């Protein structure tokens, strides 16, 4: 579903944020991307989502290069950034309907999907209000709903649990598992290692732009906890 081939990204000024990254995520995988602040997680995620331009390497989504046919790739992915800045001038339902129009979801399907996910995240009553009036958590919920309504094959989330209340976090985890069972893949970054350990079947640890560990969760952590493995890698830097 997702194949990252020799991906590198160097920012103006010479800082290499990501260095020759290679990894593959298959349908049904829940992949946890772990790393300290500034390790290159968000850069990688933004490149996969087609938000960040890059020159070196390639990213293939369902076999299609994001560089060569970005529209086709974006049609099957959904992306939620770490700080979901949504259009303040729209209402919640206005934003969801906008996304529905862009992804050309039929009216009946979008009404059903909005109903399902808005109820799951307890946001239905707020959908008529302006996004400007939303709290951070409500914006996060709305961004998640907008990502789910077009049934993405690849869901990319950057720190999805930040700002969510415990109930919404649990709802999201359940939905993530449900999505993977239906054949989608999930790529998400997190600092909550316990969540990654429990939820993910694959883990990748990035450090200073380089992938230092990658594979099935059990293989990466071995007999230790993910936290111990992560700390060990950081300290032996």
């Amino acid at each position: 579903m997702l194949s990252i081939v020799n991906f590198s990204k160097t920012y103006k000024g010479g800082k290499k944020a990501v260095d020759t990254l290679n990894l593959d995520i298959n349908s049904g995988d829940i992949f946890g991307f772990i790393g300290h602040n500034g390790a290159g997680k968000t850069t990688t995620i933004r490149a996969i989502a087609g938000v960040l331009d890059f020159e070196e390497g390639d990213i293939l989504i369902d076999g299609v290069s994001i560089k060569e046919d970005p529209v086709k790739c974006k049609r099957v992915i959904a992306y939620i950034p770490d700080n979901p800045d949504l259009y303040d001038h729209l209402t919640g339902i206005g934003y969801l309907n906008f996304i529905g129009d862009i992804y050309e979801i039929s009216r009946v399907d979008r009404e059903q999907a909005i109903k399902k996910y808005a109820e799951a995240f307890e946001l239905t009553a707020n959908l008529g209000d302006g996004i400007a009036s939303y709290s951070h958590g409500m914006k996060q919920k709305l961004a998640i709903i907008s990502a789910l309504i077009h049934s993405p094959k690849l869901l990319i989330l950057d720190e999805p649990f930040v700002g969510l209340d415990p109930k919404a976090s649990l709802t999201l985890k359940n939905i993530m598992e449900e999505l993977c069972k239906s054949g989608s893949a999930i790529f998400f970054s997190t600092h909550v290692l316990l969540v990654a350990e429990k939820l993910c079947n694959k883990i990748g640890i990035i450090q200073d732009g380089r992938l230092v560990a990658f594979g099935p969760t059990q293989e990466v952590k071995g007999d230790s906890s993910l936290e111990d493995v992560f700390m060990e890698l950081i300290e032996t830097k």
Partner: protein
Amino acid sequence: MKKVIRLVSVQLWAILGSMFAIGESKKKKTKALYVGFALFVVILSGASFFYAYMIGMGLKLYGSIDLLPSLFMALTSIIVLFTTIHKVKGTLFGFKDYDMVMSLPVSNSQIVASRLLLLYSINLVFVIIVMLPMMVAYGLLNGPRIQFYVFSILMLFFIPLIPIIIASFLGTILTYLSMRFKYSNIVYMAFSFLLLIAMIIMPYFLGNSEQALVEISQIINGQINSIYPLSELYSMGVTKGDLLSILIFIVVSILSFMVFSMAVGKVFKRINSTIMTGRYRANYKLERLKSSSPLKALYIKDLKRYFASIIYVMNTGFGVVILVLGSIALAFVDITTITGGLDITGTIRDMIPLFFTFCIATSCTTMASISIEGRHIWIIKNLPVSTLMIFASKILVNLTIIAPALLSSIFVGIILQIPFISVLLLLLAVVSFSLFMAQYGLVINLSFPNLSWSNETVIVKQSTASLISVFSGIGMTAIQYLLLMALGNAVSGMLLFIIILLILNLLLYKRLVKDGKRQFEKLSN
């Protein structure tokens, strides 16, 4: 006071940093902006000198040259007043870093004072650019004593204070009234447009024939003195050297500033809280949704974004409003009464296309339509739509804003009984020039994007893209005029102008498809 100055300096640096890309490796673009800004200063101060000298000569003939400084001071004050009203929302209320500023250990009055001083700093630059050339013109015409220059320069720093306070007062009332409505921005904009139109129409009720120049000056001076007594004080102080008048002017300005800061400080938090939180009902029930095509969805989203920004609408919608109202006015106003009995209908007919070009040039929304995405840019960059569709949506919004100009051209054609071929050419010119400005604005904005702004004013009024767009618009009007003069025939001039526009439109389209697409892909916040 130290805290207030610190707050102002931080905010000013934020604006200047955003404008001149301070601290970023954009030397080429920054240089272009410096050149643009220098050009702006030269043109504005040159125009000010020209008008001051011409009016001064007229006044000197009637022995009223001493009216010149107070007349210019009053005019500058009025311009400051009217250009500041719509900046109140966005600077004093509803500004982006409100949460951060409010969490600092400073009083509300100090924050208000810092925001007012921010408006003051921006306006002071304008006052200096306009008033200094006037001083030179007055000096050349009247040869005043050295104290005129000393007092005039000292007073430059106090001229903007009272207009800013009056504008802020009106802006506060407008904000307070409009926030009670569901579509508060629309109400706010309607009030602001009405105020501006009243300001433009007012001089016509006073009459404006050449013979009445001194009378007008005296009438204006008298009226301004009666509604704005500081004008009299300014005149007494600067031209007569009355020190007491100068002192009263300064004390009144500073006291008003302090009192206003304290008064607004009382309602500052309440108004901002209401604006920031918006309307919150939490009673929505899912209902049948309407679906649209992706292009229509983008278009509606962009159109709503446009109307959500007061500063954006006020700066790019005014030309079209004037165009429409001017066209309607032609049906009710006899041109000869405006021109002092001279029948210049023929000249007006020839000049009408220039007026249309100028108004359309001031209505370029695309020069900021990429930058306005700001921190939301990730949304459109992540959507499964082509870059060209995103461009098309932004161009369509611009064309929608200019669309009333098309109706105006037909209306004007009927009212002034312009021959059919000329109306047709005017229509073609309006369409092709609108498309040109929309495409050109987008090309410029893609070349000079600013996604890290904290105040919309920066991208709409103070950015490289907006400066280039304004100058290019004026340049195109000049080219049209030169074509008209060179060919000596309105029809041939228009035809050539349309052909040039068609070629330019094609070149701009090619540029958008090739370079524009690549520039958009590189955008990142």
